[in-house]
């Protein structure tokens, strides 16, 4: 026995040394995150957050919270914009209009001058007053070329602070729709903290301990979470009459569907904005989890999933072929089979239900499409695509074989299943489509550089105006790399002119907008540059175990969007939080 124990000694020693290293190694990061939040330490900074005062959310953040920089709208920690930094306006998708936020009001004093009145009594979290200078400073950051909103300076001439509460914007060309988008989209940053930062700092800075105007301030963060604590001196309490009940908000970084589901079921998560396959069963199965609608489609619609054909490639450069393709897809099968009715089939124009009033029903009934195998076959035959070698698939006009590859990112299981359905239903009309699942980054590269046949995309979200959708479909000129819009490289000068005209229609001129959208819809349906498939949901599963009064379709409940997603806080996400009530008083 003694001998046997002896050989274990070095092992044990090695283990102990390594364990000592590991516990020693664990000190710096944990201490580090402690130290980072230490300045705020005190009674308001407990080590353990009481469950009944904390709101747990998830579904937005895909990596560790790496920065608190509101300029980095795409990867700043959840809540950086929305909970901490605020915008001049919010947008209410139900009413279809802007609601004043940091701004008290704003109006066009003439065709190219916009005057903004700011609220009094708004303070930054370091007690400094918020003034017109901060707004001017924020917009002038856009003069740096790498700032995401740099392009507004192509049509904005100047921004000046008339007095502490008034900002005057003068435009060289008034893009009313795009301006509204910027009004509720851009987080205002404090001049007294940010002035003097270099372009590199503004774009890439981590911005620790953010100084902002919002209802919450930074508490702590770690690899897999970020925690915010309520500001008792938030201006909105008196000015807006809003008093969010959760004292703490913890946003949990997404890992997998299983984990999100497990946390929800354990009541450790209050709001999950993850896509959970089979969410319908969760709602029906009496697990204490609910969604916006108690029946299909369960979720609000957030964006449109489009099938984007590469219009520079044969035969996809032929509108007749694209039209046949549109008619050959059995969207109903995707909605029911793949999603279990969690989504809705899209209108042929692709416009979200919130934009129904901009859809010209006459144009749709004349030119619209739907799943119709025979029509697809007829369209193909009429355009000269015939099956000459009898393999069941049509060939190009010159007799060469057609085999289109349709790509979605690997691992996006619902989309992977959806494109299998598309391939199968296109086959019945004689169109050969091969589903393919490249890695996400590989897909991005192919999509941007135009090295694909067909791809599915849904990156355009609901916004203040269908203009953002038409910009997405028609934007010109085509660049070497198409990063966010017009992946199909569709060129139609007339359509793009119309889109620009639409941008210059005032937001309250609905008739003027309709006249233009109707023309755009006609072009869209005749040419099929993009094929709308279904409306992706605003995925949201909520648990009422700790917090109640979530938005639902039932009468007497809030109707705002239950979402913490990026840029959705201003579309109702924040309002949702302010209306929550503790489940047990």
């Amino acid at each position, binding site marked *: *026995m003694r001998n*046997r124990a002896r*050989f*274990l000694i*070095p092992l*044990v020693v*090695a*283990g102990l040394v*390594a*364990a000592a290293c590991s516990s020693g*190694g*664990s000190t710096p*990061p944990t*201490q580090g995150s*402690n130290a980072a939040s230490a300045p705020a330490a005190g009674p308001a900074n407990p*080590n*353990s*957050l009481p469950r009944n005062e*904390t709101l747990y959310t998830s579904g937005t953040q895909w*990596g*560790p919270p*790496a920065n608190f920089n509101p300029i*980095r*709208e*795409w*990867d700043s920690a959840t809540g950086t914009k929305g909970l901490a930094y605020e915008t001049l306006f919010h947008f209410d998708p139900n009413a279809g209009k802007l609601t004043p936020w940091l701004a008290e009001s704003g109006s066009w004093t003439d065709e190219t001058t916009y005057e903004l009145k700011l609220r009094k009594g708004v303070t930054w979290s370091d007690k400094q007053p918020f003034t017109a200078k901060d707004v001017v400073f924020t917009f002038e950051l856009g003069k740096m*070329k*790498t700032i*995401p909103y*740099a*392009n507004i300076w192509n049509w904005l001439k100047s921004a000046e602070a008339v007095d502490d509460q008034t900002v005057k914007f003068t435009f060289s060309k008034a893009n009313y729709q795009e301006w509204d988008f910027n009004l509720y989209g851009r987080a205002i940053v404090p001049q007294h903290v940010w002035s003097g930062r270099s372009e590199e700092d503004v*774009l*890439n800075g*981590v911005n620790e301990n953010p100084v902002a105007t919002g209802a919450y301030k930074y508490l*702590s963060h*770690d*690899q*897999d979470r970020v*925690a915010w604590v309520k500001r008792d001196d938030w201006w909105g309490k008196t000015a807006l009459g809003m008093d969010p009940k959760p004292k703490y908000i*913890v946003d*949990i970084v997404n*890992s*997998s569907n*299983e*984990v999100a589901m*497990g946390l929800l079921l*354990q009541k*450790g998560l209050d709001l999950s904005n993850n896509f959970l396959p089979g969410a319908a069963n969760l709602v029906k199965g009496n697990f204490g989890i609910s969604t916006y609608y108690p029946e299909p489609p369960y979720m609000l619609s957030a964006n449109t999933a489009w099938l984007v054909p590469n219009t520079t490639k044969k035969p996809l450069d032929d509108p007749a072929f694209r039209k046949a393709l549109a008619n050959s897809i059995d969207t109903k099968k995707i909605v029911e089979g793949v999603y279990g009715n969690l989504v809705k089939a899209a209108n042929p124009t692709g416009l979200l239900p919130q934009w129904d009033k901009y859809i010209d029903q006459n144009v749709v009934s004349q030119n619209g499409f739907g799943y119709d195998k025979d029509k697809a076959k007829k369209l193909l035959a009429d355009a000269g695509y015939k099956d000459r070698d009898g393999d069941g698939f049509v060939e190009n006009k010159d007799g060469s074989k057609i085999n289109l590859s349709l790509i979605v990112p690997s691992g996006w299981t619902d989309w992977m299943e959806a494109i299998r359905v598309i391939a199968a239903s296109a086959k019945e009309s004689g169109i050969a489509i091969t589903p393919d699942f*490249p890695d*996400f*980054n*590989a*897909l991005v*590269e192919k999509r*941007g550089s135009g090295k694909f046949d067909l791809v599915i995309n849904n990156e355009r979200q609901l916004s203040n105006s269908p203009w953002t959708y038409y910009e997405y479909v028609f934007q010109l000129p085509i*660049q070497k*790399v198409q*990063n*966010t*819009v017009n992946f199909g490289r569709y060129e139609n000068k007339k359509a793009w002119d119309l889109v620009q005209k639409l941008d210059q229609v005032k937001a309250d001129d609905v008739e003027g907008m309709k006249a233009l959208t109707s023309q755009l819809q006609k072009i869209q349906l005749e040419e099929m540059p993009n094929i709308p498939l279904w409306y992706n949901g605003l995925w949201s599963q909520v648990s009422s175990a700790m917090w109640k009064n979530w938005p639902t379709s039932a009468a007497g409940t809030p109707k705002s969007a239950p979402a913490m997603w990026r840029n959705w806080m201003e579309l109702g996400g924040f309002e949702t939080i302010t209306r929550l009530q503790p489940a047990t008083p």
Partner: protein
Amino acid sequence: MRQYFGRKLLIYGLTFFMAVTINWMIPRFMPGDPVAGMLARARVTQPEAVEAMRAYYTNLFGFDLPIWKQYLNFWAALLHGDFGISVWVFPTPVSTVILGAVPYTLALMIPAVLLSWVVGNRLGAYAARRKLLDNSVLPIGYVLTAMPYMWLAVILAWGLGVVAGIFPVAGGYSFAMRPNWSWEFLGDLALHWTLPFASLFLVALGGWAIGMRNMIIYELESDYSNYLAALGAPQRLIRRYAFRNAVLPQITGLALQLGVLVAGALVTEIVFSYPGLGSLILKAIQNQDLFLLQGTFLFIVLGVLIANFIIDVVYVVVDPRTRAGMAGAAA
């Protein structure tokens, strides 16, 4: 002795060089462009802004240099302890990201590896001499060792986490806690650690137990055991000798198994979204974060090499024949 360790160290050095080079190469041959992915996530619409950002990031990460220069720069930076900046958690340095994850992985791996080895060997040795124990250890061991890590992990998470509600299903510590030196926090850490540890421990345990059982049976039937028995030595003594002989292949096995165990830990971490290196590697691959991938692999390569070296040392200590061989060679 010096020659033995000299040779070993040379081999480890070469292995390290090769492994690091391969680590550097593989991510660069993956399809796709990390900067393109980064820009796509940025969702910047304006072509001028996109071009400005692309140029900026390409230069920042050094992708505009010829490939051989990138390789040389990589070694130069590495020797300065600079792993670069993460693409995924931009702009955090890779070393910070890894240091945050390493404690979790080590705290999971070291106890799982050592305890499963010790307990597994014990169990196997006992099983070899008791019919009743053998009948249960053998089938259970086979089932355990054949189980994929993630499958057992998912079963544990579901059974003990979601259904029974005893253990948390995700994270390194409770989402309500902030790291501090209190019993409450340490207890919370332990609670979150239990399930991932258990799944690693159980799978490895089965393999060691079966291996040991078979070895002991083999040793007990070998000539020296029979000879000892014929001399009238007590069973206890024979078993002790058998155990000491049987444990040697198990130590070699441990060295060989380390790589597999690391891989197992990676999957387990992903299942429990445990904030260790495994979760990092997955994310680094998904986001084409070449620098983070290089950094994590480097850590794993280093870890496995160091562990192997320790096992080499241990081998010399426990097996007198190696020492004798070395002495002979030196003479």
